[in-house]
């Protein structure tokens, strides 16, 4: 039966070339955009180095301090008793409200004191992604972002080492003057990425030995993206010595599984409740903002209410809405085209039903035909998308971030084609499947 459907689908398409061209143009253009969008989301949110364990990670990158106060309302009643005034006073406490607010990443000291030994954590790292330095190489000024990290940074984030090694715990303890560079940074500084291990680089007044060379992480993930990675003990001493709560460091915790994230977040929240505040007159309430990878990404776009989970909801709602709108418009257009195309075939549908096709088989046939059309459009869209991705990557429209097209994007593309085909074919097919046989046969005799 499907062989017959395929045969008919191709013949119907070939018989109406103008309609086929209009349909394919709409489908392929829409699917091209959707495939590029999928590639973008895959690049941004997919499990790629150094974030292959992203679904096991919990970030703590915001120490929020507040002064919460309640207004006291006094009521004084004055009465005259035996010629003398008498006072009676009562007071009520108002709603708790926020007077002062301060939010920032943490100091190393804070993390060191309060964020170790969180239950359910398999590995964790404290690091600061907030430093940048100007360097000079071959008469050129370069600006390098630097991340100061502990040795477990390399255990949590699995960077691809092209050469050399990461710094180890003993390097950190010994304040070894070492650095891990990205390939691009090595090219910029040394003019090559070959044989740079063991060479020295001058940064922040230090001569740093290059011990490792890594691939470039997507620069949209600023918390792992830098040109240079150094042991945190090389961080400016004043920063390390700061015993306050807010500084340039953040923490990442890796659970045994994605499910463990929730208990880690709860453990951090309950720990926050027991941390004594240094100056309660100024701030009397402490909150530690934790986020999953997706939550953190969404919070970067919609920083709402110090809540990555709310930000993720907003992101999904707005992103989903826009995506729906983007899919809906061409789908409605295609539905319209399909209705007029299929109506021309009402006599055929009538004949099929007269010879024993029930509504379900007519529905299946027409949806199937539409899926064939969508897949042809999808194939064209795929080729266009590959061309567009090449151009976007080649022109470095997104900086160093290279949009990826892989098996997962391909699988999503197939799924999108299938959904697009079903949705745009279902309504016209359903209408046709409900046609009154005798009336349908009277039309368009062949």
């Amino acid at each position: 039966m499907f062989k017959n459907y395929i045969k008919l689908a191709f013949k119907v398409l070939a018989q109406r070339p103008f309609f086929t061209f209009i349909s394919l143009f709409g489908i392929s253009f829409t699917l091209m955009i959707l495939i590029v969008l999928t590639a973008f989301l895959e690049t941004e949110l997919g499990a790629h180095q150094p974030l292959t364990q992203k679904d096991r990670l919990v970030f703590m990158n915001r120490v929020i301090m507040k002064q919460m106060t309640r207004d006291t309302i006094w009521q004084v009643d004055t009465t005259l008793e035996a010629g003398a005034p008498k006072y009676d006073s009562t007071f009520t406490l108002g709603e708790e409200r926020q007077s002062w607010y301060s939010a920032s990443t943490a100091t190393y000291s804070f993390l060191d004191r309060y964020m170790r030994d969180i239950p359910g954590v398999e590995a964790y790292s404290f690091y600061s992604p907030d430093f940048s330095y100007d360097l000079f190489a071959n008469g050129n000024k370069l600006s390098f972002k630097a991340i100061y990290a502990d040795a477990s940074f390399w255990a949590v984030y699995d960077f691809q080492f092209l050469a050399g090694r990461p710094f180890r715990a003993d390097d950190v303890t010994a304040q070894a003057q070492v650095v891990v560079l990205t390939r691009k940074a090595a090219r910029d500084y040394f003019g090559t990425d070959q044989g740079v291990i063991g060479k020295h680089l001058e940064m922040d007044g230090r001569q740093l030995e290059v011990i490792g060379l890594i691939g470039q992480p997507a620069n949209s993930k600023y918390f792992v993206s830098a040109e240079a990675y150094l042991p945190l003990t090389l961080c400016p001493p004043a920063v390390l010595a700061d015993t306050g709560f807010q500084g340039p460091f953040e923490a990442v915790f890796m659970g045994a599984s994605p499910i463990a994230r929730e208990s880690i977040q709860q453990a951090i929240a309950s720990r926050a409740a027991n941390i004594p505040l240094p100056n309660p007159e100024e701030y009397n309430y402490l909150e530690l903002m934790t986020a999953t990878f997706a939550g953190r990404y969404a919070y970067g776009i919609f920083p709402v209410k110090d809540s990555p989970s709310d930000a993720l909801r907003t992101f999904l709602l707005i992103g989903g809405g826009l995506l729906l709108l983007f899919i809906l418009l061409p789908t409605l257009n295609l539905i319209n085209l399909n209705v007029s195309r299929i109506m021309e075939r009402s006599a055929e549908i009538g004949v099929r039903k007269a010879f024993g096709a029930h509504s379900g088989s007519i529905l299946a046939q027409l949806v199937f035909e539409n899926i064939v059309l969508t897949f042809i459009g999808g194939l064209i869209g795929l080729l266009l998308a590959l061309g567009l991705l090449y151009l976007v990557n080649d022109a470095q429209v997104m900086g160093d971030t290279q949009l990826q097209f892989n098996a997962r994007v391909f699988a999503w593309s197939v799924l999108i084609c299938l959904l697009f085909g079903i949705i745009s074919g279902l309504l016209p097919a359903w209408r046709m499947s409900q046609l009154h046989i005798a009336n349908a046969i009277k039309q368009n005799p062949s």
Partner: protein
Amino acid sequence: MIHLQDITKVYQTKSIETTALNRINLQVEAGEFLSIMGPSGCGKSTLLNIMGLIDEPTAGHIALNGQQITAYNSRSMARFRNEQLGFIFQSFHLIGELSVLDNVELPLIYRKVSSKDRRKMAEAALEQVGLKNRMRHFPGQLSGGQKQRVAIARAIVGQPKVILADEPTGNLDSVMGNEIMNILLHLNQEQKATIVMVTHDETMARKTHRLVRLFDGSQVL
């Protein structure tokens, strides 16, 4: 075989009510070749469509092979049409995008028949109407008479109990018309097919076993 009792069909719009069929009672026996005649608009095709379960009466009862059709749901009716009925239309109604062979196979697609058997059965049906040599052609490459022969092959391929023909010679010249009529007579005489045919042609109608005349929706003979 076909028993129509008090069949009435009324077409209703907001302002007009048209009675297409008025209390028709008709019995068609197995192996019978019946023709229905009458002026245009008298309800011949409507009656044939109701017999073929592709239109519903406003009132009345239909029994096919002793079974009341009112008890059938749409899926059962589709199966019944597929297994028991074959249709021949005045305008042929072949699917232009499919080859002659594929057109003839159409009723078998909706049965559990392997593609190999489908092909065999379709070839046999085409052989009966003398068009096996044209099975790779498309309807657009055939004459009117050839198209109607393909339509007959499609109607008989599933070996239905009843063939319903709506003016099968109406779009053909007399030579072609006679050719088609001879095929139908042959099917009736040799294969004992029950045939109900709507026609305007008195000569064709006289070749059948029985003639029913309609006038303004009522049976007059």
